[in-house]
């Protein structure tokens, strides 16, 4: 459940970075304005690049309706963990400084085409979007909040899995968040899961797979075990499309693959069916 395992895609190299962006997937040079206008979707290969949680929120939530929830929750260090590179506390502080976030997920409520919803949006930039005690707590609190108001709950996942630095506490968040989802199921409150690049490890093996409806962005990496671990275990080469959104659709684990520009409208259509009657 390594949260930072790179998916093999190259980092954006920035020659003439003011004007050009290089697609992390196909390396095509794309004029920056076109890249931004296209919501960071590659016009050549349709790769949906990773975007931050506030950017994502602005694409989905009606303007002026967002209220953050459980904003007080930030990282803790239950193991007093240090590795070769130093204390986890410092690593977490650096992630906060870099992203301006307090945890790997943004939580709150707002409206989608006038329909009130609760939402949790993971952010890969914050320690690989890893599931930690704080992240699990925010998702659980927000699911409970959604339950109290009978608002549909939507999670956008973007995560390499559990945060190793919080050890067993992060593993237990899988059970904690799933229990909160189970309560929404009991209440008849819709839960929609959107899987974006990447959704792997402990996040794929908990709430991300438990949507009433699972939606994926095109070409997102989705899977439980890491590609390299599997290759080492079975000693054979894996198919190119292995663990892609398209592979998951073919194998029956997602309902739809939806482009970024169509996501809000799609969610709105689904929410019509989950309305309280």
């Amino acid at each position, binding site marked *: 459940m390594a949260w930072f395992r790179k998916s093999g895609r190259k980092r954006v190299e920035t020659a003439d970075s003011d004007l050009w962006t290089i697609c992390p997937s196909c390396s095509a040079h794309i004029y920056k304005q076109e890249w931004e206008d296209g919501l960071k979707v590659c016009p050549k290969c349709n790769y949906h690049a990773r975007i931050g949680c506030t950017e994502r929120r602005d694409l989905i939530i009606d303007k002026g309706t967002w209220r953050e929830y459980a904003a007080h929750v930030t990282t803790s260090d239950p193991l007093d963990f240090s590795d070769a590179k130093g204390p986890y506390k410092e690593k977490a502080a650096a992630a906060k400084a870099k992203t301006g976030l307090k945890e790997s997920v943004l939580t709150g409520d707002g409206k989608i085409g006038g329909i009130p919803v609760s939402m949790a949006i993971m952010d890969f930039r914050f320690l690989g979007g890893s599931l930690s005690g704080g992240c699990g707590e925010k998702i659980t609190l927000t699911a409970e909040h959604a339950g109290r108001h009978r608002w549909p709950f939507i999670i956008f996942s973007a995560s390499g899995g559990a945060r*190793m630095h*919080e*050890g067993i506490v992060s593993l237990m968040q899988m059970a904690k968040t799933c229990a909160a989802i*189970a309560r929404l199921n009991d209440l008849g409150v819709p839960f929609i899961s959107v899987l974006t690049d990447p959704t792997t490890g402990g996040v794929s*093996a908990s709430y991300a*797979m438990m949507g009433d409806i699972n939606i994926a962005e095109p070409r997102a990496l989705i899977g439980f075990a890491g590609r390299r671990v599997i290759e080492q275990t079975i000693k054979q080469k894996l198919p190119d499309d292995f663990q892609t959104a398209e592979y998951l659709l073919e194998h029956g684990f997602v309902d739809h693959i939806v482009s970024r520009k169509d996501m809000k409208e799609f969610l709105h259509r689904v929410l019509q069916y989950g309305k309280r009657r």
Partner: protein
Amino acid sequence: MALDFEKPLEEIESRIAELRRLNEKSDADFDTEIAALEKKLRSTSKRVYSRIGSWETVQIARHAERPLLRDYIAGLCSEFLELHGDRCFGDDQGIIGGFATLRQHRVMIIGHQKGKTVEEKIKANFGMASPDGYRKAMRLMNLAAKYKLPIVSFIDTPGAYPGLEAEARGQAEAIARNLTEMSKLPVPVIVVVTGEGGSGGAIGIGVGNVVLMLSNAVYSVISPEGCAAILWRDKEKAPEAAAALKITAEDLTKLGIVDEIIPEPTGGAHRNAEGTIETVGDTIVKHLRRLKRMSARRLIDQRYDKYSKIGRFKKK
């Protein structure tokens, strides 16, 4: 098959055995020497085991002679009626389960199976279950709910199987569904971590009202070797990773995840398997008696609270 740090003990033990043999065969009397060696054995073992760290505990948890699920079933259950298949695809042997009569209590037992012989190990895939195993376990747990049988889940796995077929059939979904459905089981769920608690593969059948753990078992989000390879960029640093990850029964008790530690004999469960199995049985029965008195509603709420407390944010 002694572990490295056990070697000094093994040497003394083999000398004692040799003298005992001579004692029986000849007229010579070695009683004094034996007594001296036994004294030395006690002090050496005290010294050896007082110094063992998390990494040595990992070795004990993985010990080739450590009691496995089948040993616990044989030692504790007058009947085990194994049930087979997930009704979707197959009958994974990485997780087995069935009706059992455990010291007069009718229960549903599920657990990871590692296997003892090479053949058994391969059949059980070394305790690494596939989605079919997790789905079989959930099917049996739902059956237990229908028959109002308490569930006892034995955890001992290096992790869920990382394979192509396992991914294609939804390893992630199978584990996720178990976590979700286990949280709502209307019957007591007792989890016993007997050996290796390997990450998602362990928690996938590990959501309980009570989590018990043997004193030399380990439970971790990632194997120490895996963590070392990633955070230390060096597999050889597994001992450091094992310590940093806080994976022992004592660590997990302090973190509020394990409810009771089941003591093992000095050196580990393999040094007195029968005794260990009895202690495990006693502890399970103690909690069974307690949990059987709780209503379905209370069991579900207590389980929910247990997990929602883990990682609860406290303002500093």
